[in-house]
């Protein structure tokens, strides 16, 4: 597609982030979840997965889904800089998605964590993968994090013992609307990664292949009775 001069001006500058190597995690159920970086060709499936949850008010799925939809669409249409998404897939079906972005090579801006398959700490594993990408692969010094839901607050702010930077507002200001900002520093990450982050690499090709073409879930526990194409 030709990119005209105006479009060039509208697109954000991209730094080009290092790749996040895929890994696999055996969940408590015994199911294998492949955790890999999302590709541009995955975005349709990701948007289709997130969209139905915009109607779920419980646990702030509506806000997270709407914002994540925006972030994925903005990535697809070149309206956000240095964003990445990591997806967890079980037998190819999307179990969870995280979004995030690099600000300047030193600072990461955690965007959202969406758990589709609940009860197996899928969200916790994907959040850890997101932090792993920021600190270990993108080599950032710290990541700024906010939470919309009490569940998120417990999982990230409490369990990771994140630094509360809210008193430094507005100097420290997360991009998501001025809500209290917390930070995961490299030091904090080093302290918790052994108990928070796991996964086996490399992923055997036959397992990685199951997550090559992502499938949207047909049902959601968050939407009782809802069926895709139903």
């Amino acid at each position, binding site marked *: 597609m030709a990119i005209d001069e105006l479009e060039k001006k509208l697109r954000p500058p991209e730094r080009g982030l290092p790749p996040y190597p895929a890994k696999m995690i055996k969940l408590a*159920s015994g199911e294998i979840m492949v955790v890999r970086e999302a590709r541009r060709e995955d975005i349709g499936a990701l948007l289709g997965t997130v969209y139905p949850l915009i109607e779920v008010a419980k646990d702030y799925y509506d806000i997270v889904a709407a914002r994540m939809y925006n972030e994925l669409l903005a990535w697809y249409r070149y309206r956000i800089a240095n964003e990445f998404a990591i997806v967890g897939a079980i037998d190819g079906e999307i179990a969870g998605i995280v979004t995030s972005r690099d600000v300047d090579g030193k600072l990461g801006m955690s965007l959202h964590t969406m758990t589709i398959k609940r009860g197996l700490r899928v969200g916790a594993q994907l959040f850890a993968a997101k932090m792993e990408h920021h600190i270990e692969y993108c080599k950032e010094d710290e990541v700024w994090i906010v939470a919309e839901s009490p569940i998120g607050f*417990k999982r990230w702010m409490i369990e990771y013992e994140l630094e509360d930077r809210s008193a430094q507002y507005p100097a420290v200001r997360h991009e998501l609307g001025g809500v209290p900002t917390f930070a995961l520093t490299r030091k904090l990450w080093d302290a918790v990664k052994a*108990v928070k982050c796991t996964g*086996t690499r490399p992923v055997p090709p036959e397992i990685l292949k199951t997550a090559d073409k992502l499938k949207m879930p047909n049902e959601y526990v968050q939407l009782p009775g809802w069926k895709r194409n139903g």
Partner: protein
Amino acid sequence: MAPRIGIVGIGHCRFGNSSDYDLVDVIAYSANDALEDAGGLALRKEVDQVFVGNMAAGMFNHQTAVASALISRMDMEPCPAELIENGPASGASAIRMGYMAIASGMADVVLVAAGEIMRTVSGWEATNIVATMAHTEAEYNMGLTLPGFAGMFTRLYMQKYGLTERDLALVAVKDHANAALNKYAHVQIPVTIEAIADGPEANVVNNYVAEPLRMYSTCPITDGSAAVILVNMDSPKAKLFKKKPIRIAGIASATDTHCVHNRKDPLVLDAVRLSAEKAYKMAGIGPADISVAELHDAFVIFELLNSEEVGFFERGKSFLGVRNHETEIGGRIPINTSGGLKAKGHPVGATGVSQVVELVRQLRGEAEEGRQVKDPKYGMAVNFGGFGNNVVTTILAKD
């Protein structure tokens, strides 16, 4: 001589997250379910007494006088109704009060309904609320919570008897397998021993909560309700109910020191043993007669300890029975066929009634395929209030 007292109706909601619902509505749901099971909602007019089991609605839901509210919600005025609070044994205590009301001659039909909505608060706040049952100065103010207690308790047991973390995981695997088949269970997800104990990722997938207790050694925080209808089997009213009664053959309680450190041996749960002994004596049976048991396992170590105190295993040997599959459905003594508190969930005030509902389902032969114990005769429930300091044991019989 006390009349024969039986259970003619059972009700239960799906355990899980009901924090969007009103506590009284959730309890009424199971109460109505029990009435329907017994023969229809019109039978509520035959109820002489209502007991409601609940531990902490005042803190979780900012609501008190739950029994009065339930009566109005169910259009049951002027039926007498009282709230029974005995920590996480509130449900079983409410059943015991119902039994005593009938045995005393003051009632022929008693509705016991119990419930708790805990997920209105965060997990750590729920843990804090439950911890208020510990001794204020000696325990709670020192920062002890129930998971903290159970962690120390488990460590002591490990040192004394050789229990391993893998043994704890085996209990969880068994409980989750049962819960996966139980339509009422909170966590209907089977888990594998490789994923939560043996595999390279188990340390993260099954993280520590209070070392050596891990996530899969600990019950979830759960909302839910359950109800039973007790009837004097020798009264004319008994004929109004369509279901054949499951008889309460024995029901007894016992207490122990409030402070755990005042016990001679913290690993000895005197109140469990004594309440079980009294219930056995009342029923005229012994441990070998029990076909199926629901044992209070807010932490899986309690399933093991309780199974020793009630006489299913020698002291320090219960985990060997788990290794040998003796507590699985089809084993010598199936324990926590419902999934237990571990996987079915533990809405604290409701648990004791939920355990009894499961036993009735088993004794009637109404449990789901794959979860039904073959031809059970007697079922036992042990419901734990506090850290083993106020325990109710119930034995049901299929006559």
